[in-house]
C-alpha cells in the first residue's frame, strides 16, 4: 500500500513537473485532435441562422456520420423548412493533406444528384458562419501552435493556445483557442481575418458524454464583423450504434428519410 502511494505520488510529481515544463501548444492541440470521437454518430441537428437585424432562419437536419479511417463520411437530410424536405447532402472528407472533399447534393424537385465541387475549405457551410474547415478537424501539423497562458473561463481552467497557419493565403491569419484542461474540449475559439482583425468567435455551450465519447451539443459561432450568428444544436445524439457502411451512397440520398 505504502509502495503504491509512493509510486502514485512520484507519478503525480513527475506528471506535474512534466506538464508544467513540457506541455506545449502543439501537445495540447494534438490531445484535442486525438480525443476519441467514436466510430459513428447520428443526431438531429437544428441550425439557427440569425442575421444582424435579428431575423432568424431555422433548418432541421437529420444527420449521420461515420469514420472510415482515412476518410470520414457524412450524410444529411433536410427535415424542414418544408420546401427543401428530403433534400440531402453528402460529404466525404479525406485525411490526406491537400485532397478536397467530395460533395453531393440531391434536389428532390430536380430528382437528380449533383456534385458540388468545393475547391476551398473556406466556403461557408449552408449559409452558416461555419466554414467546412471550421467543422472538420484541422490537422495539428497545419499550424504552428503557441501556448499563451492558462486562464479560467466560466469556472473551467483552460489552456489558451494561439495557432498560426503554415500555409500562405489561409483564410485566417490566426486562431486563439481556449481548451479545457480536464477533457481536451475547446471552450472558445477566436478567428482572425487576413488583416489580423477578430472575425468570428465560437463558443461551446453544452456537451454530453456518451459511451466515453464527448459530443458537443450546443455551440454558437458569431461573426462579429457582420454580426451574423449560427447556433448549432444536436439532439437525440447516438454514438457507435453501428451505422451501416452503405448509408453513404447516392442511392440513399435519393431514397430520403
Amino acid at each position: 500500500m505504502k509502495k503504491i502511494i509512493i509510486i502514485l505520488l512520484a507519478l503525480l510529481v513527475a506528471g506535474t513537473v512534466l506538464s508544467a515544463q513540457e506541455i506545449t501548444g502543439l501537445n495540447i492541440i494534438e490531445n484535442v485532435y486525438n480525443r476519441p470521437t467514436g466510430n459513428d454518430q447520428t443526431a438531429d441537428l437544428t441550425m439557427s441562422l440569425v442575421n444582424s437585424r435579428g431575423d432568424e432562419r431555422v433548418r432541421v437536419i437529420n444527420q449521420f456520420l461515420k469514420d472510415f479511417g482515412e476518410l470520414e463520411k457524412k450524410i444529411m437530410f433536410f427535415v424542414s423548412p418544408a420546401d427543401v424536405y428530403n433534400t440531402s447532402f453528402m460529404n466525404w472528407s479525406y485525411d490526406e493533406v491537400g485532397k478536397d472533399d467530395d460533395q453531393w447534393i440531391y434536389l428532390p424537385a430536380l430528382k437528380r444528384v449533383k456534385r458540388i465541387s468545393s475547391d476551398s475549405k473556406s466556403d461557408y457551410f449552408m449559409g452558416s458562419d461555419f466554414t467546412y474547415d471550421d467543422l472538420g478537424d484541422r490537422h495539428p501539423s497545419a499550424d504552428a501552435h503557441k501556448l499563451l497562458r492558462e486562464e479560467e473561463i466560466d469556472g473551467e481552467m483552460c489552456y489558451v493556445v494561439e495557432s498560426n497557419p503554415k500555409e500562405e493565403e489561409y483564410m485566417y491569419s490566426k486562431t486563439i483557442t481556449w481548451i479545457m484542461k480536464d477533457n481536451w474540449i475547446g471552450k472558445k475559439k477566436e478567428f482572425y481575418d487576413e488583416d489580423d482583425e477578430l472575425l468570428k468567435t465560437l463558443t461551446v455551450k453544452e456537451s454530453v458524454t456518451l459511451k466515453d465519447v464527448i459530443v458537443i451539443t450546443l455551440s454558437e459561432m458569431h461573426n462579429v464583423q457582420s454580426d451574423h450568428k449560427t447556433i448549432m444544436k444536436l439532439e437525440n445524439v447516438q454514438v457507435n450504434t453501428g451505422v451501416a457502411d452503405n448509408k453513404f451512397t447516392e442511392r440513399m440520398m435519393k431514397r430520403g428519410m
Partner: protein
Amino acid sequence: MEKFLNKFLRFPKITMLVLLIISIAFFIVMKKNSKMETDLDKYMPQDHPAFVYSDEAEEIFNIQDGIIIAIENQDGIYQTETLQKVKDLTKQLGKMKEIEKSDVTSLYTADNIIGTEDGMDVKAFFKNVPTTDEGLQEIAEKVRANEMIFRRLVSENETVTVIIAEIGDDVFSQEFYHQILELVHSFEGPEKLYVAGVPIVEGSMAYLGPKDMKKMVPIVMLVIILVLLLVMKSVKNTIITMLVVAFSVVWAFGLMAAVNIPIYAVSTMLPVMLIAIGVADGIHLYSHLDLFLRKNPKATRKEAVSDMLKGMWKPVVMTSVTTSVGFISLLTSEIFPIKYFGLFTAFGVMAAMLFSLILIPSAILVFGFPKRKQKAISESKITKNPFSYKFAEGVIKYKTITLFLTITIVAVSIFGITKVWINSSFLDKFEKDSDIVLTDKFINENFGGTSNLNVIFEGKENDTMKSPQTLRLIDKLQNDVESRLDVVGNSFSLADYMRRMNKVMHADKEEFDTIPDSQELNAQYLLLYEMSGDPENLWKVVDYNFKTANMTIQLKSDNSKAINNAIAVVEEYKKDFEKLGVSVNYAGSGYKGLIFTDLILEGQIKSLIMSLFIIIILLAFMFKNFWAGLIGSVPIVITAVIGFGVMGLLNIPLSTTTALISSIAIGIGIDYAVHFIERYKIYAKETGDKQKTMQGTMHHSGRAIIFNATVVIAGFMVLLFSVFPPNRSLGALVSLNMFTSFLGTVTIMYLLLYKTNLFFKKK
C-alpha cells in the same frame, strides 16, 4: 414709434457703439460656433412615410450609393497588369476606413455561378492574376458566358471594367473624396481611370455650391457698392447702407450659431437674400433725405432726421414686416433646413430694419449729411419736368397698352408655367463639359447606368419570393422596363439568380434560362447556392426570409424624368403584383431625391399662397383699406407668375434653389409696392390732387425703387459669371424678379391705384 426711435437718437454715439458691440459679439459666436452640414440625408424629413419605407429597405438590402471606378485599357482589360490593378485597387478600397470590405464589388470579388459536369459551383473569377495568355483568355471566356457579370462589370467591348465601392450616407467628405482620387490616380497608366457615381456627384455639389457662393458673394457686394456709390453719389451713405446689410447678416448667422443650428446648403442663400432686401431701406431713407434737403437746403441735421423718420418709419417697418412674413411662411415646409432658412432670414430682415431706423439716422446725426455737389442740387431744381413726371403721365395716357401688355405677358407666362418641370437631378447642376458629367457619360455609354432606382416587392408571408409566379412577374417587368426605356441600361433582381442557376444546372442550355417551375425547385436551388458559396450577395436582392425582394433598375441619368418614366412602367405592374399578394414600393437615394424635391415644391407653393394671403390682410390693415391690400399684392403675383413662366419657357427646371427664389419675389416685390402706396397715400392726403399725387409719388418712391432695383439687379447679374450653373440661374432669376417687381409696381399697380381712386374717395 417715432418717440421710441427718438430716444435712441438722443445719444446717437452710444446707440451706435452698442449696436457695434452686439454685432461683434454675434460675430465672435458665429466664428466660434458655426458648422456646415453637408449630409443631404439630414435635409430629409425623417418621419415622412416614403422616407421611412426607403430607409428600412435600404437597411434590409444594404442599398447604398456606389462610387464607381472605371478602369479603361484600350488594348482590352484581360492583361495581367490590368487585372492586377483591379485586384489591388479592390483590396485597397476595402481597407479604407470609410468603406466596408464587403461593399466593394469588382471582377475580383464577383461570384461566378457556373455549371460543372455534374452540378453547380460558385467561384471567384480569379484569385491570383494569371500570367499566361491561356489563363487570361479563360477569365475572358468565363465573363462572356455569365450574363450576370458581362456588361455589368465588364463593358461589351472588353476595354473597360468597373469597381463599385458602396458607402454609407454619412461618410462622404471632401477629404475622403481627395483620398479616393489620389488612390485612383496612383493606378493610372497605361490604363485610364475614371471616378463617378452618386456619392461623388452629391458630394461635389454640396461642396462646389457654397464654395462658389463664397467666391461670388464678395464680388456681388463690390458691384452693389459701386452701383450704390453711383446712385447715391455719396461714400458715407454707401458705407452705412452696406453696414446695415453686413450687420444683419452677422446677426442672422450669429443667432444661428448661438442656438446651435448648423449652416445648411440653403442657408448660404441667406446673405444673398439679405443683400437684396437690406439695401432697400437705406436707399429709400437716403432718397427721402435727399429730396428733403433739395427742398430745404438750410435744414439742420436734427430737422432732416426728424422729417426722414416721420415720413419713412412706417413704410420701412411695413416693408420689413411683410417681407418677414413672406419668409416666416416657409415654416410650413416639411424640410427643416428650409424652415430655419425662413426663420433666420426673417430675423435678418427685422435686424436690417432696426439698423436702418437707428444706425442711419444716428450716422447722419454724428457724421453729418452726405456731401453733395452744389451743382447737382441746382441742376435738379432747374428740372421742372423730370422724367418721373413724364413717365407717370405716360402710363396713364397709354393705359390700354400698359394693360394689354401686362395681360399678354401674364398669359404667356401662365402658358410657360404649364411647361415647368421639376428636376431633382444633381448631375444636371454641373457644366455639360465638366469632368464629372463627362465621366458619368463615359460610364453610362459602357455600362448599365450610374443611377439606381430600387423597387421593393413585399409579400405577405415568408418565402413569397420563392414562388414562380412572383419571380416570373418580376422577370417580365425587368424585360419590359429594359426594352421600353432607353434610359434604363440594366436591371437586377433575384430572378436573375434563379434563371442563371436553372441554366447552369441544365448544362448551360439556353432554353433553361427561365424561372424554375416550382417553389420547391427555387428553394432547393437557393439552398444549393448557399452551400456553394458565400450567400452575402444574395441578401442584396432578397431578405432573409424571402418575404421581400429588391430589384435594382440602373438608369443612365439621375434626371427626374428618367426616374419617373421607370416608375411609370413599374406602376403598370402594380395590379398584377397585388393579385399575388405582393405590394410594390420604391427606395434608394434617387427616389428619395425625387420625393424630396416634390416636398420642397409643395411646401413652396403652400407657403407662397399663405404668405400672399397674410400680406394682403397686413397691407389692408396697414393702409386701413382692403383694396390697398389687393392692389399691393398685384406686383408680387405678376412677379411670381412671370418668374415661373420664364423658367417654363426657357426649360429651366424647378429645383431646390430655383423654387426658393419665389420667396425673394414676394419679399422684395412687396417692398416696392408698400413704399409706393404709402407715398401715394401721404401725397393724396397732403394735396388732394390726383395729378400732383401721381407725379410726387413717382418722383419720390419711383426714384427710390428704380435705384433699389438697379443696385440689386447689377449685383445679382454678377452671379451669371459663376462657374456653378445653379448659382447662375439664381442670379438670373433674382434679377428678373427684381425687374418685374419694379416694373409691375410703377406701371400696372400704379395704374390700378389711379383708376380705383383709392385714398381719394372721401373727398
